[in-house]
């Protein structure tokens, strides 16, 4: 999966028209990242506010079509979704369609992965796709 993503992103950079991604453009220097938590964090109790960073793009609620905007999606314990489809909405894919830049997360004890994907008014990732590094956090047993 990682290789697929790397190749897709490289292709996206080199051959814009051919890329397997959505229709909404994103600037090349757009970035989403975790302000909190940090990779490797241990979070007692498993309840926290995940804070989403966004650079060189803006937030717009789902359904609002405006160039270089989108809304956050938090992927929990799952792989990145396909970049040319609407991001699914389930307990592993949390949508922040109201334009939130942070969200309350509650996780059971164990190791968890978190990743941010930005998507357009139709919940489809941009072109090129804007997504964060996948981070790992730990929730200790009670």
């Amino acid at each position, binding site marked *: 999966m990682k290789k697929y993503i790397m190749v897709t992103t490289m292709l996206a950079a080199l051959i814009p028209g051919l890329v397997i991604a959505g229709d909404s453009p994103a600037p090349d220097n757009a970035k989403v990242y975790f302000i909190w938590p940090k990779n490797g964090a241990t979070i007692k109790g498993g309840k926290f506010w995940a804070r989403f960073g*966004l650079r060189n793009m*803006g937030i717009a609620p789902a359904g609002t079509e*405006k160039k270089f*905007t989108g809304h956050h999606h938090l992927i929990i314990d799952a792989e990145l979704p396909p970049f040319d489809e609407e991001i699914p909405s389930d307990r592993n894919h949390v949508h922040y369609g109201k334009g*939130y*830049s942070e969200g309350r997360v509650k996780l059971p004890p164990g190791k968890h992965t978190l990743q941010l994907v930005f998507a357009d008014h139709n919940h489809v990732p941009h072109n090129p796709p804007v997504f964060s590094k996948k981070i790992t956090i730990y929730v200790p047993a009670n």
Partner: protein
Amino acid sequence: MGNGQARKETMKTITTSIALGALIFGGAAVAGDSPAPKNAYLYIGWPNNGEVIRKNNFRVWFGLRKMGVAPAGIEKPMTGHHHLIIDAPLPPMDEEIPADKNHIHFGKGQTETRITLPPGTHTLQLLLGDHDHVPHNPPMMSQKITVTVK
């Protein structure tokens, strides 16, 4: 120092009065028309109050909890866009927030920025504005923080 302190206290009183006014008079409050959720919270993620910043160009993070960001011009309930007030008091709560070097608008829906400030003490405050750049009802503003740029 005395003058600045007096001004701070006056601002505090005015802000509190406006907030009280909004609470007491509800519809008649000195605020805009767009509602904001009662438990929403606006804050400056970084820098922190009292921060000493050792470069004059730095990033400011805008924190907004339980309310969404939307670009200017987009009318959607319970959303707004950020305004950063630098070295100035809060503007009137029932008018369009001015746009000048002390009132920076983030009408594209940004949630962070980079600013350059000369050495010295500066105040920073966030104020959310609706699609028309008018503060909400009740107004959504962060704590006013003071930072020192070295």
